[in-house]
């Protein structure tokens, strides 16, 4: 990377996240005006957006080529008090917490205390939601049965398709006007609602153009003041770019990136759509601009790379807006979930890998930033060299890019009702969830704690932690005569609790549709303009709700242990096991060891356990899939945890797989930590026994030590492992590489690293079982092999 990029990157990495109070202040001032009482809700939201775009601080950082910040400076993070309002205590926690603190200055706190909190108290979406939920929902929520995504953020992390690269906002305005002209007030009872929504969209289009113009104005001022002729020319060019986009379709590579960035800022300023928004299939979108620039001699590969690097830094400048309440203390790890897709298929089904794909992978490798995240979309049609290029980045141990099975994703999307073209233009976003980019509202509605369902089943519906009734009465577990009876009780609890969650979801969905439309986002997602309906209210072509199951490994191993020891082998009785669980295995260590060491486990290609996993999957699928939401769409399942498996574990007592109370659940669809003892191929085989094609995403994490990935052979092996998993219809896999630091920690605190497996030579072994000399040797080798 050149000097400019290196400097901007360093600034971005060094910048300390802080709370920017500007948006909250502007929003409060706006809502204190008479507009909310005068205008319809969509128009009011559009005017609020316009007010933000007109008044927020314009920030052009020294040396930047792509301009615009969500806050007032890099990592100055806006808040969204109309969705949820931070309390004084939240600000204190955010300021003081160890992980990812957000500085909240005295001035910020004063404004919050004096203006923001007094005005928004009782009026936020978060409060509306909690007021609207029934006791069953509230009890289950408090018990940690599920989480609710919309209690702090609006539905979101949607992905854009290629429309902005073909159309300017002025073109979209024409489309909107056409829709307005065709409203039928005589026959369509929704005509007025549609009119207000469409009027709101027009206002938003103007607002984003104005926002860009303000950047152009600022760039011109800076250009006049600039003495360095080279920078002066750049600033003049920035002004030109910001005048042209987003009003008009982009003419070149630079304008394409800047247009997207304005749209990104617009969407994430209008609301906090689950922290993020994403350009999606960036290599496909940029390819025409890239090749045209090269052909015409107006762009070099180096220039394109520099612009992309500047673009990358913009993402890294935007931390996810920090949360409120309990989660403020806990979830320090969240970043803005933008996931750039690379490769995959073109709309016509051909291999989508192109020169822009490799250009972007170069940028990913060189920038090595947490944000934006990157993925490769792998089809059987994609060349091996593409996977191996990505594998070179993967083995540096940076956790990126993650790897997706495009051929399966297309199947998943088609099963869920998308057209073939829309499916091929789709991909994965956020963690692993799939959607038809630019055409779908696919909403993650919350994580669902699968092992907790079993805990309730084993306590006849009572949460043993609190003594509260959360589930239904499914009978005294000691009287179950067979595993089938137990499983049937589990299924009944599951169905009941899913109903509780869905009832809540369907209300929350209406709350957003009613109070919090997103007219700017609606311009960007087909067919909101054509339908005259909002993104939050049936406007998109497809409307999917996901509920993400968590703890698949734990629930499988727990049920397997019950089946194996209580029913099939009668090693001990249900009563004995329940007593051990209640005691958190204290005084029952040998029983715990039997559960942990002498029980079939998911992740070993052992059908005894894997068949139980299939039953768990099937029950979950049946409970959720294809049920209607309120927007004409359907519910689907996902299996991913982000970091919630830690929280879900903390609300659970001991489990029959030998896990002690409070410890994390298994993560994604990965086996329980350390339960996989047959190597990586067995993990993949077990994981692939699930029917990934009927989900909207599954997450599989694998750990390797760098020796395994060494040399050309290592790349080849990684590629083959990926291809094999995808031949078995796996959805996603990501690789973490164990570093020397981790090994050193394991040496110092072996009890925490019982399950860490390392490659010794031609074979692998538990690291903590090795003698100190050999451990040192492996640490030294690992250090050496940092690629």
């Amino acid at each position, binding site marked *: 990377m050149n000097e400019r990029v290196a400097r901007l990157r360093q600034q971005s990495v060094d910048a300390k996240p802080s709370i920017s109070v500007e948006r909250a202040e502007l929003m409060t001032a706006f809502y204190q005006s008479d507009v909310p009482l005068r205008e319809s809700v969509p128009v009011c939201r559009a005017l609020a957006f316009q007010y933000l775009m007109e008044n927020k601080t314009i920030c052009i950082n020294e040396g930047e080529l792509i301009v615009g910040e969500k806050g007032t400076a890099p990592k100055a993070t806006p808040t969204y008090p109309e969705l949820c309002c931070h309390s004084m205590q939240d600000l204190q926690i955010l300021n003081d917490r160890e992980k990812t603190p957000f500085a909240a200055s005295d001035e910020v706190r004063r404004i919050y205390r004096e203006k923001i909190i007094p005005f928004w108290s009782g009026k936020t979406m978060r409060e509306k939601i909690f007021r609207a939920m029934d006791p069953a929902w509230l009890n289950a929520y408090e018990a940690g049965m599920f989480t609710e995504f919309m209690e702090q953020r609006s539905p979101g992390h949607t992905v854009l398709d290629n429309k902005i690269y073909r159309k300017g906002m002025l073109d979209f305005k024409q489309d909107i006007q056409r829709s307005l002209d065709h409203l039928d007030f005589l026959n369509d009872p929704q005509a007025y609602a549609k009119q207000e929504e469409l009027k709101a969209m027009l206002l938003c289009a103007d607002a984003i153009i104005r926002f860009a113009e303000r950047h152009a104005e600022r760039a011109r001022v800076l250009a006049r003041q600039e003495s360095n002729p080279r920078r002066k020319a750049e600033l003049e060019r920035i002004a030109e770019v910001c005048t042209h986009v987003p009003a008009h379709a982009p003419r070149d590579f630079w304008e394409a990136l800047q247009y997207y960035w304005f749209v990104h800022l617009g969407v994430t300023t209008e609301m906090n759509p689950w922290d993020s928004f994403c350009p999606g299939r960036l290599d496909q979108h940029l390819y025409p601009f890239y090749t045209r620039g090269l052909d015409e001699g107006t762009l070099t590969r180096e220039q394109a790379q520099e612009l992309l690097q500047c673009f990358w830094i913009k993402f890294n400048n935007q931390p996810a807006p920090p949360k409120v309440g309990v989660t403020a203390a806990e979830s320090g790890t969240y970043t803005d979930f933008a996931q750039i897709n690379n490769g995959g298929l073109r709309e016509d089904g051909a291999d989508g890998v192109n020169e822009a794909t490799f250009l972007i992978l170069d940028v990913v490798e060189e920038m090595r930033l947490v944000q934006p995240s990157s993925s490769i979309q792998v089809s059987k049609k994609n060349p091996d060299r593409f996977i191996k290029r990505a594998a070179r980045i993967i083995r540096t141990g940076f956790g990126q890019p993650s790897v997706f099975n495009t051929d399966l994703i297309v199947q998943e999307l088609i099963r869920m009702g998308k057209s073939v073209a829309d499916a091929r233009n789709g991909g994965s976003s956020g963690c692993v969830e799939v959607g038809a980019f630019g055409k779908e509202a696919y909403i993650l509605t919350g994580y669902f704690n699968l092992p907790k369902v079993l805990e309730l089943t084993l306590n006849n519906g009572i949460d043993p932690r609190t003594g509260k009734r959360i589930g239904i009465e499914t009978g005294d577990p000691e009287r179950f005569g067979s595993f089938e009876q137990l499983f049937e009780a589990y299924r009944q609890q599951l169905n009941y609790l899913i109903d509780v969650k869905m009832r809540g979801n369907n209300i929350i969905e209406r709350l957003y549709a009613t109070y919090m439309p997103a007219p700017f986002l609606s311009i960007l997602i087909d067919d909101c303009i054509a339908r005259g309906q909002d993104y939050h209210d049936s406007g998109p072509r497809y409307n999917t709700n996901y509920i993400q199951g968590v703890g698949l490994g734990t629930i499988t191993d727990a049920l397997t242990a019950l089946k194996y020891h209580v029913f099939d082998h009668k090693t001990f009785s249900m009563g004995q096991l329940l007593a051990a669980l209640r005691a958190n295995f204290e005084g029952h260590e040998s029983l715990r060891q039997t559960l942990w*060491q002498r029980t079939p486990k998911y992740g070993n290609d052992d059908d005894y356990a894997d068949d139980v996993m299939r039953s768990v999957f099937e029950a979950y699928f049946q409970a959720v899939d294809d049920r209607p939401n309120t927007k004409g769409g359907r519910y689907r399942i996902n299996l991913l945890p982000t970091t919630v498996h830690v929280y879900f574990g903390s609300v659970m007592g001991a489990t029959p797989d030998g896990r002690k109370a409070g410890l994390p659940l298994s993560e994604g669809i990965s086996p329980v930590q350390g339960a996989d003892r047959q190597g990586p191929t067995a993990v993949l085989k077990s994981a692939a026994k699930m029917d990934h094609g009927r989900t909207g995403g599954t997450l599989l994490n694998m750990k390797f030590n760098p020796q395994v990935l060494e040399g050309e052979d290592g790349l080849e092996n990684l590629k*083959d492992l990926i291809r094999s998993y995808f031949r*078995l219809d796996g959805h996603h896999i990501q690789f973490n590489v164990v570093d020397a630091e981790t090994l050193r920690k394991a040496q110092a605190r072996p009890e925490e690293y019982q399950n860490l497996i390392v490659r*010794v*030579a031609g074979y692998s*072994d538990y690291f903590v*079982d090795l003698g100190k000399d050999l451990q040192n040797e492996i640490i030294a080798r690992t250090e050496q092999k940092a690629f």
Partner: protein
Amino acid sequence: MFFKGCPLRCQWCHNPESWKPLPEPGFRPSRCVRCGRCIEICPQNAVSLAETGPVTDPQKCTVCGECVTACAAGAREIIGRRTTAAEVMAEARKDVVFYDQSGGGVTFSGGEPLMQPEFLLALLETCRTEGIRTAVDTTCYATPEVIQRVAPVADLFLCDIKHMNRERHEEYTGVGNGRILENIAALARAAKEVIIRVPIVPGFNDDRANLEATARFVQGLKTVRRIDILPYNRGGLEKAGRLTGRIDLMQAQTPSDSTMNGIAEFLRGYGFEVKIGG
């Protein structure tokens, strides 16, 4: 697939648990929680408590496995088990999707697979029928008759040459290299493909004279193009410590990357394709 039992006693062996052609008790001290259940339960009273933890008397132990079942911590295990060709094939078939993708297959290793020729042949035949590629990783210490029978059935032989000097070989492995070299020559003539593997054990076989003799011998085979050199590692010492029966292995230094690269270059000079590791 590892066969248990080996006619050689290589002093640097990294799989000492596969020397004995019988199941034997193993023990991982790092896992032991000192609960004493193995001592209580052993019907032969073969386990007693020493300062370092429970110790099994190999003379008394009948490998009944009672202590393994009793050990909740998973510190005790029986290394090796009697199995059937059907069971082994079931395991082999589990990975077919990976073989199909990578062009790989099953490797029969050990120990010494040729010590159980009938079992090996049965497995090789079944694999051939099912189209699963096979490799036999062998010391080549077997009768010429066994070599003749196995040669046409496997897809690949990985043959070790540990030292070219007969005396040195005998001193460090317990057997001479005459029969081994003859068998390698026979396989080179009769088998589909042979790859030579040379463990690089500093102080034993890493001198230029021996490497040169090795290279010349392999050149003389005509059909062999690839030599893999495997750096000595100390995993064997580790594993030997987990066995009940005492095994004394030599201590050598792990060769450095530059040493390995130097040897690889040297062998490439003879026209071989050379891989480090493998």
